[in-house]
């Protein structure tokens, strides 16, 4: 009798942990917004703040992907500072397309330290939608 209760407990726990493993990725709301203009960072970060509040515990990842000729501005550390503090607080990562950097001859070390680099903006966007169910918007 004791034994069967033990087995039952183990089974129940397995069931619970199995479910718990599924939920963090599957149930959360993840977002990616791409833009070519730096001033757009402001409304996008406000959007992230609002969604963070709205989603509560379900709020997952929020990424901004930048590409195009305006990414030069990402090297302006002073200007970027006005965005990165708020981005960090709202759990927003900012990344830039490597191809755009190469085209403009910008070295990755020139970027503000908060900025990450992705190999190819479009591929990154499609992959997030395909593999991770991100809600996506291109500005």
């Amino acid at each position, binding site marked *: 009798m004791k034994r069967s209760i033990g087995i039952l407990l183990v089974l129940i726990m397995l069931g619970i942990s199995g479910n718990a493993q599924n939920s963090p990725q599957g149930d959360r709301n993840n977002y990616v917004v791409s833009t070519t203009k730096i001033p757009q960072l402001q*409304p996008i970060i*406000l*959007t992230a703040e*609002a*969604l963070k509040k*709205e989603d509560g515990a379900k709020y997952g990842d929020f990424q901004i992907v930048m590409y195009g000729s305006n990414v030069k501005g990402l090297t302006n550390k002073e200007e970027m500072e006005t965005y990165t503090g708020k981005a960090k607080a709202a759990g927003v990562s900012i990344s830039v397309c490597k191809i755009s950097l190469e085209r403009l001859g910008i070295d990755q070390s020139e970027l503000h330290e908060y900025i990450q680099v992705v190999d190819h903006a479009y591929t990154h966007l499609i992959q997030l939608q395909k593999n991770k169910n991100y809600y*996506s918007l291109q500005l």
Partner: protein
Amino acid sequence: MKIYFLSSIVLLLTLFANPIQAQAQHEKENYVVLTKKIPQLEPIFLTAETLAEEDGKNFGKFEVIICGQTVKELTDKEMMQKYINKAKEHNVELVACGFSLNKFGVDRKDISPKFRVVENGILYNLQLQKKGYTSISL
């Protein structure tokens, strides 16, 4: 006997109630398009027309959010009236982004009341996607 009867009713109810609920949620197809150029409304209406035909009874809402500098053109009442008529014809709802109106100094009194103004067009789009809307941005 009574208990058997009652429990079988409950069982039947649970069996049938669930699929019906699930269907109700998937019944309507809703769409949202975000655009930064007013002339894009033309092909967007064509899209809505095709989808309405394709979806038949399942065609739900079709909303267009207008964002960016192009919101200045919303004050051109004559040009906008053509779009407003067509939007009505195709059951398309027109939405303007409040952030854009503020940024480009467009007074809300100068645009047609047929436009619904939302505070933040980007946020509004993502909120609709969360509700299951199919989205594209132009």
